[in-house]
């Protein structure tokens, strides 16, 4: 664990968890996927969660995003307690407050890029005209203005993920949750997504990313390592190295 002070106190934390637990099964087959986690994520902070498969990192993300309900502990989002919410309230929360980005993009195959982005806006009760304007504007921001009428099947992996990112932003979420956002992407597409995430960070969005990709983790503010349902290490990465890049390959010698 780092000895540094948290950069935000509980009052400013956008996401706050205390003793958060999620268990599956019972008796012999009991699995403690998330085993008593305390977490504060500040407004505008970008946090990466890494760890081996099965360490509970995706479950943690699902709890924060209201895709799953905790077995115990407390969970706040934007000063509102959400661990006890019912199914309908959770669905509402997911639509309005959370932007999800998944490894497999999860776009609707039969809808165009623009329609995919529009859909959650319509579900959240925006007018068709408003939803359409927002979708067009967001597709422009992710560099896909000229692809808005394409079906996902006509787009590359990197382009599909950019559509998914635009979709995640359409309802101006409080927090964006990304589960392995570069897991299905080649190196060039990974950098496309990283550039986009960097711009979102710069605009002050709060982002939580579960990832195996050290490149993704290294570009966040804070890296949390998880094992067996608990946090085993936290690293703040702000600032980078003091040395010159060229020093890494011995060019400065």
């Amino acid at each position: 664990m780092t000895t540094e002070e948290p950069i935000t106190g509980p009052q400013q934390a956008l996401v706050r968890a205390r003793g958060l637990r999620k268990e599956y099964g019972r008796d012999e087959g009991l699995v403690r996927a998330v085993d008593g986690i305390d977490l504060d994520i500040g407004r505008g902070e970008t946090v990466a969660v890494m760890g081996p498969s099965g360490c509970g990192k995706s479950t943690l993300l699902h709890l924060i995003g209201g895709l799953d309900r905790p077995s115990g502990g407390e969970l706040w989002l934007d000063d509102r307690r959400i661990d006890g919410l019912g199914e309908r309230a959770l669905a509402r929360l997911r639509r309005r407050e959370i932007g999800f980005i998944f490894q497999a993009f999860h776009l609707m195959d039969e809808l165009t890029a623009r329609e995919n982005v529009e859909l959650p806006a319509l579900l959240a009760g925006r007018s068709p005209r408003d939803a359409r304007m927002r979708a067009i504007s967001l597709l422009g921001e992710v560099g896909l203005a000229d692809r808005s009428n394409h079906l996902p099947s006509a787009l590359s992996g990197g382009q599909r993920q950019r559509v998914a990112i635009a979709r995640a932003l359409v309802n101006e979420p409080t927090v964006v949750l990304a589960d392995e956002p570069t897991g299905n992407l080649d190196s060039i597409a990974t950098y496309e997504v990283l550039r986009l995430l960097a711009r979102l960070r710069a605009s002050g969005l709060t982002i939580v990313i579960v990832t195996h990709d050290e490149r993704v983790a290294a570009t966040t503010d804070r890296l949390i390592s998880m094992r067996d349902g608990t946090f085993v290490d936290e690293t703040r990465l702000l600032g980078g190295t003091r040395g010159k890049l060229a020093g890494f390959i011995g060019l400065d010698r």
Partner: protein
Amino acid sequence: MQQEVVLAMLAKEPSHGYELQARLGRALGPLAEGINEGQVYVTLTRLEKGGFVARVDTPTERPDRKVYRLTPAGQERVTEWMSDVSWPRPDLTEFHMKLVAAAQASLADPISIVDAQRRELLRRLRDATSAAMQEQEGSGSALLLEGIVLRLQADLRWLEACETSWTDRSKDR
């Protein structure tokens, strides 16, 4: 500056240090900032003493515009370098022994050594990834940065294996 790099850049045509410096800058992009301005000239002078390059007579006497060409010995050295398969060794032994010694003599907790190292490499990866993100796709320097990123990723994965192994060992004790 590695002598072979300067020699190989002269293989295309006779050139002066200033031009070589500029070509090096284009090939290395953001990594070129680590190169000391004088290094190319120092290397050229050494190569001249060694008989690998020779001065081409030119009207100008400006030291940075002295034109050099490869000698037959220089040409031979470049050819050898091209077919040479030696590769920089990542020195993992030193770090490995640091962990072993730390545990055996109770000098420090191997896991905290691994953690500190991991943080350092993550910060380097952050710098390298940020630089790669700013590069034009397909540029020569983007490719070099990608190599640096991949090596750091490999090192980080090895550190993860170190951490797992030393965590298990400390449990067994």
